[in-house]
């Protein structure tokens, strides 16, 4: 019954058509490339929509945005930044707390384009296995960078952060940064499935913490229709988040994906031929969703 990883999404294309089977992917690419274009219009075309980069930026000379994780490193290193930075970070914090912290990862971060490509190629080439690293490593790294920032008095992660270095490479021009991008690509392709974003990146780890109470969620609303084709597991960058929601009917777990590593990328929605998933809110999370009627009656009766 289960489909091969390289065939993930094929069934959905057949039943829903190509466009609907790629809806969220296309929207996501528009978002990612649109943000890149907004940043690059300045230095490349002289059209200054956004100045700065993902560490801190100023949009249309009014909207300040600051990465709260980088600001946090600055704070623990023992400085007191200007209020602009706090305002910028507050806006970012509120936004991602509503739409889901890791929306940053899947809808904004330029590295996602690289790791998604690596993941896609990995599926198509049928590369499997690789090193077994705990997915919680990123939280350890997150903690480590904060401790190290406090010890050294500098913003430590910015020395090597692929997220900002990639964008800076595009905006300010640089050569060696591409080696880092290539490194992430090869690592994801050959060493570990979703290696960088899913295991090591402390930026994503930080944003996943903002995800904890976000109302906007993917929900397996029609989970009773699941035919175990495994396509969603194969395309998901954090497959461990799906199971509790999708297969939780018997255990009294609601259909909403509540795990904070979910990036709200919506790819599972795209590839599901049975249209099990959709975006929804964390509040419509009735555990009885998808429990078949007989069991429901039994449950009520007992």
């Amino acid at each position, binding site marked *: 019954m289960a489909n091969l990883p390289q065939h993930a999404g094929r069934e959905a294309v057949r039943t829903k058509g190509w466009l609907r089977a790629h809806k969220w992917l296309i929207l996501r690419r528009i978002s990612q490339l649109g943000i890149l274009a907004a940043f690059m219009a*300045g230095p490349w075309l002289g059209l*200054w929509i956004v*100045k*700065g*980069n993902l*560490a*801190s*930026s*100023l949009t249309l000379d009014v909207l*300040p945005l*600051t*990465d709260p994780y*980088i*600001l946090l490193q*600055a704070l623990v*290193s*023992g*400085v*007191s*930044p*200007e209020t*602009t*930075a706090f305002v*910028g970070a507050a806006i970012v914090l509120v936004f991602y707390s509503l739409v889901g912290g890791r929306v940053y990862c899947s809808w904004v971060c330029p590295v996602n384009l690289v790791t998604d490509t690596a993941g896609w190629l990995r599926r198509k080439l049928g590369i499997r296995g690789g090193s077994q*690293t*705990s997915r*919680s*490593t990123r939280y*350890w*790294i997150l*903690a*480590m*960078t904060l*401790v*190290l*920032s406090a*010890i*050294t*008095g*500098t*913003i*430590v992660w*910015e*020395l*090597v952060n692929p997220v*900002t*270095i990639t964008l*800076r*490479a595009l*905006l*300010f021009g*640089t*050569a*060696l*940064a591409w*080696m*880092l991008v290539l490194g992430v690509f090869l690592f994801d392709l050959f060493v570990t499935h979703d290696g960088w974003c899913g295991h090591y990146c402390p930026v994503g780890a930080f944003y996943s913490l903002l995800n904890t109470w976000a109302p906007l969620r993917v929900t397996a609303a029609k989970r009773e229709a699941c035919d175990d084709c495994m396509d969603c597991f194969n395309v998901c960058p954090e497959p461990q988040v799906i199971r509790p929601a999708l297969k939780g009917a018997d255990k009294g777990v609601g259909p909403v994906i509540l795990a904070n590593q979910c990036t709200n990328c919506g790819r599972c929605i795209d590839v599901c031929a049975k249209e099990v998933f959709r975006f929804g809110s964390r509040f419509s999370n009735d555990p009885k969703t998808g429990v078949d009627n007989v069991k429901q009656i039994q449950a009520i009766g007992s």
Partner: protein
Amino acid sequence: MAETHDDKKGISRRQFLSTTLKTACSVTLMGVGLGFYAQRANALPPLAIRPPGALPENDFLGACIRCGLCVRDCPPQILSLGQLGDDIPTGTPYFIARTGPCVMCEDIPCVKACPTNALDHSLTDIEKARMGLAVVVDQENCIAFQGLRCEVCFNICPLRGDAITLEYRHNPRSGKHAFFIPVVHSDACTGCGLCEKACILEKAAIKVYPIEMAKGELGHHYRFGWKEKAKAGHALVTPDVKHHYNLPEGVRYELQGKGLIFENQKAQPSSGEVPFPSNPLQSLNRKRKESE
């Protein structure tokens, strides 16, 4: 049934502990590596000058968020961001005076652009900026020291007459010409680097260095007697004793005055037998025979 359950739990706990420990160890190792890299990568080469208002380097590296907004708002576009693999900490702004010096904009847009105060917003007068300090570092090649008229660094200096002055000196080579030596004053120099850029040599003889590298520091115990005396109004070491000169009767000596004063004609030496030659070197260089 209960036993196997316990067993399972025991194994999973052991597994959990060992994975946690493994992760903790490898991340710690990674942290140590990153820490050492940070130490190396955070050392700024002396040629890289921070924008105006930059906090002291240690604070700057904690405060600068690496956004590049100062780079964008710099009108002459002289600022760059350190890149991975550079000697300059990744993503932090700097300029190289010889290729692109700071032009000292009056409204200091780079400082205004900084969202984190890494470029101190309390700096509102660009003349108070201390980006570095110019040093006439190669006196052998600076042509002013050869007695040639150059003065380009002096003339380009936005604080000409305060930050760089010309010092007049006698030129012993020709005997009749003057040296006009450029002298930098740290109380006025902003370290903008216009002088370094303007230096006419193949390689600049005047260079901007980070202040802590350019400035010497006197031993903290050291005191200049004349300054202390002026401060206190009197000598602090030994009381001022009027110097006693061993002079022949009827002869006085006035320090910083007329010199030897003969009070009566009798004491006035006749020509040929002056006890004190007018040139002090003559008595200092006396040969042993003469002194006996």
